[in-house]
């Protein structure tokens, strides 16, 4: 890395912009074959057990509220 690139790297904060990627919905926990896998982005498989749930989680958002542009 060049010297002048180094100061930018050191000072640079998070910045990003977007690239289109296909969204997808994960299979149900009881999905066993490819046939069970739902098409994207819907439908979503129904709950099959009384104690099925989805843990929705995030972390390390790093102050990013949306891509830069």
């Amino acid at each position: 890395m060049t010297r002048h690139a180094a100061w930018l790297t050191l000072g640079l904060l998070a910045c990003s912009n977007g690239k289109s990627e296909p969204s997808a919905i994960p299979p149900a926990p009881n999905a066993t074959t490819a046939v069970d896998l739902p098409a994207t982005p819907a439908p979503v498989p129904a709950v099959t057990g009384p104690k099925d749930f989805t843990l929705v989680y995030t972390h390390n958002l790093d102050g990013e509220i949306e891509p830069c542009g």
Partner: protein
Amino acid sequence: MGGLSKRATILSREKAVRPVVVVDAGDFGAKSDTIPEGLLFQHRAKAHLQLESFALGGLDAITFGEEDLALGTDWLLATAKELSLPVVSANLRCGDATFAPWKVVERGDLKVGITAVTAPELAGSCTASDPVRSVKQAVADMGPVDVVVLLSHEKPEADTALVTAVPAIKVVVNGHGKVKNDEPKPLPGHAVALGSGSRGKYVGLARVALVPDAVGFEATGGLDALKEKQTRMTARVAKAKSDLEDASNHPTQPTADAPKKQTGLSDVNRLHSQLEYYQKQLADVEAEIAVFSNAPGGALNKIVNMNSPAAQDVPNDPAVQALVDATLAEITRHENEGSTAVVALDDSPFVGADACKSCHEAQYTQWQTQAHAHAMQALSKDGHERDASCFACHSTGAFHPKGPQLPSQMTAAYENVQCEACHGPGKDHVAGPKPGQMNPASDASTCTVCHDGDRDGGRFDYAAYLPKVTH
């Protein structure tokens, strides 16, 4: 890719079809454990927006990391109170303030226990008691639940010790290591570690099916990934051994049929280090496989993870997008009305592209046709022109010791990716041109400071992009 309004849409879609438990494991705040005074307003405004959007969509538990505590504990505690955030931490104390050490989320007959922990070295101006002891006590106190989730603000390596010491923990979401585990990673005791990466580009959706009397989780995909790594490392160890043997048997002189076998002592040492590195990698992955291959001794819950991309084709949630737009407008207004002195060109080593034009007109003209010359437009069209997280890659001289440190310190002379963004400051060159003064900017590292595969959504291809800027 990314953004709070797309996160909200992904959450809404999931809530429409399944019971959800929503958590955030911290480091939602500034991307640093120290925040310059001039950036505090921006980072607090963004953090408030993050938390407000969490509250709007429904949040069951959140814990704090060092990036969040850097926002100021008084501010953070006041904001948590204002938004009624469900902050959980088994070991964090900020002044007189402590947090709920655990929480049980109920969905019908389902009970999910959640606890959280922050590493003492990441507690900033707060203090954090012994993580293992604190978590053990929290889990003991929460009573019977169907599954225990740990929000860990520790180094990911420490999670193994935590689940070993507290075997009731079966799901870990690490909020410090920017981990992205597309498949749940096996941990001791048939626990699993989840991770959705950083910067909100993905939302983790772990679909769980609990079975009676389970002793942990299946993580077949994660185990397969480990076995693939084992295969790769086994091959690399074999290759490294072979290379080392060759090097040891053919000292110093290359041959016509093997010109690369130039094997001085430094080569042997390097190959020896390489072999040791791969052997360590192999031993580590084999240890992980061994831990998870143990017979479970009971039934296993099912878990299917999806790190759902907050991609451009995911619609924005209107309510959250309105908050995003309002926050960006507030940041722009604050920056524009701020009293921060601008960094004039006269006071910096930069001269601006117009000064280059007089001698390099052809290059200047070519540059003007490229996106670099209009980079600020890409920010201003979406209201990010005063966003401290964005301006450096769309301007010239940002964060140079004598350049603008804040968006409000920029004059128009610094806007866009000009000549000196790649070739370096030009004041000395203009004063007395000499060969070698300027960076030829002929290698990829000049570009990858900004086009790092993350900020640009992975679009950058050096070979494809270079002809566009060559002049």
